[in-house]
């Protein structure tokens, strides 16, 4: 199949799904704000809703809306997602952080992806450590949620349903990787009229917990997450472990080969959380760790002041 034909096919499928889902969503009633808004033509057409009913709606409402997944608790069938971070290439460019914040309409102080300056012990070398949510296979955060607001899907992604979260923050104490953030106050980004979807956690809600979602809404459209696409160094690889393939946008490699050749590992493996994010050790680094301090905001630079590396440099 040619590239063009494949593109056409996926576009056709997308439109078809989007059409049905869009009209179903309109029929569902709650989503009129996000599609159409046109004046009625008086011309009726028949459409099929997601629960199998045939209804008539005005032709003006039948617009393909952004695809709304019917149930965000169901994973993309046949997939199991995994991420690999190549620590040898990370230079704290922080494009992953800004791209993620833009894509999810996050306030500037909320970071789903964080970059740490880690140093495992006194004599080992420091390295930059990007850390999203690990979407663990044994997620303690999911186990302790009293209302089931956070859940793990069949495709491995752990999501938070901000319509159900009561804000008890037990999941935040349960996560050993500090992956979750809490909305302590109302942010103006939360006033967006967009229909809430747990798969991209937009818009956020005050008093609830949110975190990296592996851009589940983009994955449903076969697009890579924002962080993967935006990294200038190609640090982040993403893919389906059942296909044994990961890509960083430019390079596509076999996951098992990558882990074997570069000795991939998971962070704090002994905790038994079984994360879905692997790290490749910072061997044969492309750049010195100090390159990560270039062009940093003053506020960001201040964060690393107390790290052993910076303290040693200051003498």
């Amino acid at each position, binding site marked *: 199949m040619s590239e063009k034909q494949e593109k056409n096919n996926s576009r056709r499928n997308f439109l078809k799904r989007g059409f049905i889902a869009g009209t179903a969503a309109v029929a569902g009633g709650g989503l009129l704000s996000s599609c159409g808004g046109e004046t009625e033509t008086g011309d009726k057409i028949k459409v099929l809703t997601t629960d199998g009913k045939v209804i008539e709606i005005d032709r003006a409402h039948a617009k393909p809306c952004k695809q709304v997944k019917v149930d965000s608790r169901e994973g993309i069938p046949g997939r199991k997602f995994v991420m690999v971070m190549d620590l040898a290439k990370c230079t704290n460019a922080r494009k992953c952080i800004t791209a993620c914040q833009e894509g999810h309409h996050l306030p500037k102080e909320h970071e789903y992806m*964080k970059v*740490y*300056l*880690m140093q495992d012990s006194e004599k080992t070398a420091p390295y930059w450590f990007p*850390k999203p949510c690990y979407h663990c296979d044994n997620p*303690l955060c999911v*186990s*302790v*949620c*009293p*209302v*089931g*607001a956070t859940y793990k899907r069949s495709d491995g992604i752990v999501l938070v349903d901000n319509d*159900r*979260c*009561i*804000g*008890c*923050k*037990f999941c*935040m*104490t*349960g996560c*050993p*990787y*500090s992956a*979750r*953030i*809490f*909305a*302590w*106050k*109302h942010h103006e980004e939360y006033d967006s009229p967009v229909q809430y979807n747990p798969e991209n956690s937009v818009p956020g*809600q*005050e*008093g*609830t*917990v949110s975190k990296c979602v592996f851009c589940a809404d983009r994955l449903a459209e076969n697009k890579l997450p924002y962080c993967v696409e935006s990294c200038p160094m190609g640090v982040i690889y993403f893919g389906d472990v059942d296909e044994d393939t990961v890509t960083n946008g430019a390079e596509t490699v076999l996951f098992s080969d990558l882990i074997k050749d570069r000795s991939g590992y998971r962070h*704090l493996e002994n*905790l038994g*959380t079984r994360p879905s994010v692997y790290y490749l050790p910072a061997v044969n680094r492309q750049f010195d760790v100090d390159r990560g301090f270039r062009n940093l905001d003053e*506020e*960001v630079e*201040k*964060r*690393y002041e*107390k*790290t052993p590396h910076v303290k040693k440099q200051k003498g």
Partner: protein
Amino acid sequence: MEAEHKNYTEKIEEFRHQIEKPNTITWIWMIFLVLVILMGIFALVAQITGGHIITGMRDNVVWGIYIVNFIFFMGISYAGALISGGLHLFRTDWRHPVIRMAEAITIISLLIGPLYILLCIGRLDRIPYLVLFGRIQSPITWDVIAIATDIVGCLIYLYLSTLRDIARVRDFKNLKMAKWRKKLYSFLALGYVGTPEQQKRLNRAADIMAAMVMAIAIIVYSVLAWIFSVTLQPGWHSTIFGPYFVIAAVYSGTGVLILAMWIYRKLFHLEEYITRKHFVNVGVVMMVLAAFFGYFTFSEYLTKWYGSQKDDEQLIAILFDRYYWLFVFSNYLGVLLPLIVIGIPALRKINIITITAVVVILALWVNRYLIVVPTLESPYLPIQESRLDWIHYSGTWVEWTLTIGGIGTFCLLFTLFSKFIPIVELSSPKLPKAKA
């Protein structure tokens, strides 16, 4: 039946002013407490409108003073349950003056504790989800079920143990109180007149509930401890948290009980009923618990420090750096003081014991604080932040005001309770008239 009644009429006479219409001082006291509670409500409204950002909690230390207060109040509640249940089941001689106070402490702090959890919850409008969507695997669901069970159990037990005295008050003519109150006593007395059949049933039910309340107290407080110990956080992930919390709870409860005894003794001149012997007896319980508490605490920190696992090391570094004096106060003074005071006979004076009790209460509140907060300040992934309030936790005026509001509520409810029923258990087969 008649004989039982007659013996205690004079006792009721002594206590009548306690439960009759409140006098001026009591009114002033209650109004003062209402003002304190209003201050708390003001802080609550500020928090609801301003968002949780006005508390000191941030993304790392997500649980602060509210949770400490929750653990503290639940702790003294279970202490009350264990003490009153134990005293009842063992038919201890000297229990009558103190057992009702213990029961009152139990039920009142059981009502206040969960309020602090509600303060910590981000979306109060979704509280019903805890029941509608409750997940059995979550320790918080266990806690919800446990606390609900406990409240019902303690209410039943309280009712059973006050039933006799309610009947006494009902039968007492010429009490200066509102008509509706008299009717209330009538209704609540359930037609109890002290027949042998009724007594048998009452005793049986009370014995069973006393045992239940003790068992439930232990289980429920362990569930609370497990909320912390099932997580992986260093400092929380300890196998002995269940028993540790239970012991610490009963310990703090004895402190509150002694304080309540001292206050009521002074206020209502109950020197005849609450004697030095009572203080010493409860004090001995406190001392024994101090020893157990010290043992558990020492065991906790010794294993952490000796093994010096990296995460434990980080936690201990924070404890002995930022929280050094608090740690010494709570875990040294709080343990040694009761041992010394009760251990040395010459020091077993009422006032000294009471001062020790106050120190114990404070020490245990600090102990809970040192369990909750430093652990959250030393997570596995280092906190690399520029904002100071995100690195270290410090409670804001909202949290402290609500803490005081909670204490005020506790005092108010206690006052109202003592206005309802004599604070000393008057009726039972034998009531020894003690010598001072």
